[in-house]
């Protein structure tokens, strides 16, 4: 065998070995990506399940109350962060509205003020009316609302993930904007 063909053979073998490692890398990349993106690729709705918030009689008519529940998907090391708060508005009879605690602007916890019938956000001053519709400030829409039903005498909501503009608790159209010129 002459030296030049031996050299080209070694160069070929080296390229082949690179290719081999590339293939092994690709095989390894699949489970790694699947592992990293697993929680991200799971469909949002699959996190949701029906949760009982309490008996209907626990919510006086005409009042809006803070309720917390344990998220249906938690790990033992979530601690307090496994809990979620929401606002329950009992309009009358079997009519309810259940709002997410998270402001539609950037997710800060809104507070209900019964006297002025407003939800106010501490972060950037977003304000909402009693029915969750946008009143003023930077939020692009009204409060996120959970789907709810009454099962026997229990108020149930469908919840499981943090509501944001992309992961809404309930699909509701963007509210018409209040004059933003001033």
């Amino acid at each position, binding site marked *: 065998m002459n030296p030049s063909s031996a050299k080209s053979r070694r160069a070929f073998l080296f390229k082949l070995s690179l290719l081999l490692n590339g293939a092994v890398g690709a095989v390894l990349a699949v489970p790694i990506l699947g592992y990293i993106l697993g929680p991200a690729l799971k469909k949002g709705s699959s996190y949701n399940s029906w949760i009982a918030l309490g008996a209907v009689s626990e919510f006086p008519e005409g009042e809006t109350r803070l309720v917390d529940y344990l998220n249906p998907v938690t790990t033992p090391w979530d601690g307090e962060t496994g809990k979620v708060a929401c606002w329950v508005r009992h309009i009358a009879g079997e009519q309810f509205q259940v709002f997410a605690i998270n402001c539609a602007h950037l997710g800060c916890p809104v507070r209900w003020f019964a006297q002025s019938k407003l939800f106010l956000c501490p972060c950037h001053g977003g304000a909402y009316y009693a029915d969750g519709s946008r009143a003023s*400030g930077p939020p692009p829409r009204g409060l996120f609302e959970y789907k709810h039903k009454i099962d026997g005498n229990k108020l149930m909501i469908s919840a499981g993930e943090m509501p944001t503009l992309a992961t809404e608790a309930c699909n509701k159209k963007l509210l018409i904007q209040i004059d933003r010129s001033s």
Partner: protein
Amino acid sequence: MTKLKHRGIELYNWIEHRLGLAKPIVEAAEHPIPASSASWWYVFGSAAMVLVVLQVVTGILLALVYVPSASQAWNSLQFLNHNLTLGWFLRAVHGWGSNFMIAIVLIHMTQVFLFGAYKFPRELTWIVGVLLLLLTLGMAFTGQVLRFDQDAYWGLGIGASISSRVPGVGALLVHALLGGPIIGGATLSRFFALHVFVIPGILLASIGVHVWMVLRLGINEWPMPGRLVRKSTYERQYHELVQKNGMPFVPDAAWKDAVFAAAVLLAVIACAFFFGPFGPSGQPDPTIIQTAPKPDFAFLFIYAVLAFLPPSLETPFLLIVPVIVIGALLLLPLVAGEGEKHWSRRPVAVLMVALIAVTLGVFTRLGTYTPWSPIMDAWTSDPTPTQYLRGRTPLERQGALVLQEKQCRDCHSLGGLGGLRGPSLDSIAARMTEDQITRQVLQGGGNMPSYGNALNPAETTALVHFLLTLRGQDLTPAVDASRGLARH
């Protein structure tokens, strides 16, 4: 004694014969630099590097105790603060070290920009530097999350909400950021891995590349007005400058770096000792909603900007502006790689630095007192000024009670107390007539909610009558000019 010395040299030679690192290190340390660069203006980069070492060391020490679990992180921070000898001090040094590092990196960047040091052949050094700035800010943000308190929890909420605005992949990004459906254990573990492994790894490697290029290309010479950078001639000129008028970096210039680094370290230690550690604030329990979350100092300007964007502009602004800013920083040396280096011949550059500094300063200042946020307890805690009640009719006084009880004070101040979201009401009757006040209260508008549903007619009447008494220092009441005309 001489025998011991001899043995020592022998040992050194034995190691060096095998390792071979001492020679290149000494050569690098003694590399010649232009005499003009042995300046106090050239000490910030090395100080930033010393701070990185401080952060790594204190970070490892904190990791000996910190528990990266959503259920225990806050408790372990309390334990560090109160139960462990000098745990509070280590946390304080790490926290203040982070603030100093951001400050020094920004000063370093400004100096490099004003001295034109990013120009040929140091373009890539600047680009890696921009990456280092982003990594530093990434460390600051992820570090703030590891201080797992209320601010960290709701800060993650803000991060998730911003991610959710990306069209198409918003939900995917939210879940990737949180590591699950809600902010919880998986989220903290993710940020722990980023803060402790991923970002520091990239950061240290990038610092290596950054410093390698500084050594390879030589430190920027002191710029002179009129001495232009040309790609064809610069490297020869620089070489001549160093040949003719150079000095070894160690020790001729390095002593200034060392003195400044020591001063910075001392300042960090002093701040840590006198001001103590940052937080943690309240425990990260999302059912405790009596909180006004706020990011750390370095991110206050973003928090402030987010309060002023109109809703329709917010998403495009959030997604486009960072790309433009980072893109501009990265492209700067490629676009302006030649020409004048001296600041006195670069007015646009100087004005840009001034403009950016003032902008960041103003928004950060606003972020410290958040005038856009309602003050949630003003309605129960701020007194009505007595001069606004003296000599008033029962109806007007009733109106003062309505104003208090309906939380108007959360957004409007009286006598300097109350929220700053809306205008102060001290002289409202000098600006608005009775009709205008009534309309504004009932229908809202101009960023004020309408109170038509929250007030009954009696309350509205009382409130408006009280507001009509508020005329500042006895200003003339506002009048509707058309009223007079209509009467005639």
